[in-house]
């Protein structure tokens, strides 16, 4: 079994994995990062979205061995120093979740989206979230949350710089 070394949510792990192990299974089963969930087997739902070297990916569609030497951020690593990420806060404020199963993936994709495009229009947000399915919310409040999260993220980043 190949040995991989991956930094996940700030901690470096070194493990032997079967090459067929999917990144999402490695996160959930080996590392106990069960915040990231699995909603489908065709990579359509986006529930498993994490960041791999800073970009959003569907962790059911990446092998754990492919993450060797790379950095992964999951929903569990998003809050820093006990403070919610502005996007997490926005999802809460806007009631953008009901059962919450799609939420980790939604938030991770939303963070990627606003990093790329801090001034995304509603249409751009809707397009940018198209790889994440939600059965509960009808997306209305998710879109609102991403809008709020975008401006909050931007001002938080601005605040850090100054």
């Amino acid at each position: 079994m190949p040995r991989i070394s991956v930094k996940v949510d700030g901690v470096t792990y070194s493990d032997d994995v079967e090459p067929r192990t999917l990144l999402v299974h490695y996160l959930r089963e080996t590392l106990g990062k069960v915040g990231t969930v699995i909603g489908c087997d065709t990579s359509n739902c986006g529930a498993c979205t994490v960041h791999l070297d800073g970009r959003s990916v569907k962790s059911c569609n990446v092998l754990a061995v492919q993450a060797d030497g790379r950095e992964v951020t999951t929903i569990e690593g998003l809050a820093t120093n006990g403070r919610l990420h502005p996007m997490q806060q926005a999802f809460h404020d806007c009631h953008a979740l009901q059962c919450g199963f799609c939420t980790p993936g939604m938030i991770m994709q939303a963070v990627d989206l606003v990093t790329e495009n801090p001034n995304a229009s509603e249409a751009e947000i809707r397009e940018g979230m198209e790889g994440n399915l939600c059965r509960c919310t009808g997306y209305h409040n998710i879109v609102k949350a991403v809008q709020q999260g975008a401006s909050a993220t931007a001002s938080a980043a601005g605040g850090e710089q100054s």
Partner: protein
Amino acid sequence: MIPTAFDYVAPTSLEDALSALAEAGDDAKVLGGGQSLLPVLRLRLNAPEKIVDLSRIDSLRGISDDGDTIVIGAMTTHDEVARSELVREHAAVLAEAASTVADPQIRHRGTLGGALVHADPAGDLGAPVLALDAELVVVGAGGERRIPAGEFFQDLFETAVGEGELLTAIRIPKHTGWGGAYEKFVRVSHQWSIVAVAAVTRDGEAKVALTNMGSTPLRASAVESAIADGASVKDAAAKAAEGTNPPSDLNGDSDYRAHLATVLTRRALARAMGG
């Protein structure tokens, strides 16, 4: 959800990749971005014994300017293609098509080379590559071959890439100043194309290719010659389905697809010509 067991190598050079492939013969499978291969493996529709991952070969990635051609490494992602200034300027239809593939997460991983070799007739990148008269660079034990896009796609999921060979780059003649448009028709967003049309135009000239109107991407030559003969966009577009053999499935039967092809061709041409 779990593939059958396989061995895995991630060579860092093309030579190593080719020798790994040669060694394993037909039990090996090349892993590009994995966005089509991994779903196939997870559903156990295929069970290779060895996976040769190209993601650590730097030379296969990136977009460069080579005089009157742009060269896109096979491992360049859809996202990179869609955002590339070079591609937008000289092959706009490809950038647009790449931005319609799947969703952002998949575009961050999936590659142009992988999509072309996968050769799903509903895939969005074959048609623009075909319309742009691209050449595909294939490397194997016997050296390098350059294959015109028109000869690359052979059938459903079948291309000119042979066993032990790799697609390394896509060479696209610059279409600077040409208009381009990709009209993709889906029922719900992030779906594969039901039908799509890539159009590249300049004065009195049009190159048009169709997605999902047969087992491979197809050039709509009847449309192209009609335009060359001075026909109106509407009259030319009406010929879009000539010589095609579109599939029938949940999203539409072949008659409907044939009709869609004409509407989308008209819209693509109009948009490409409009600027």
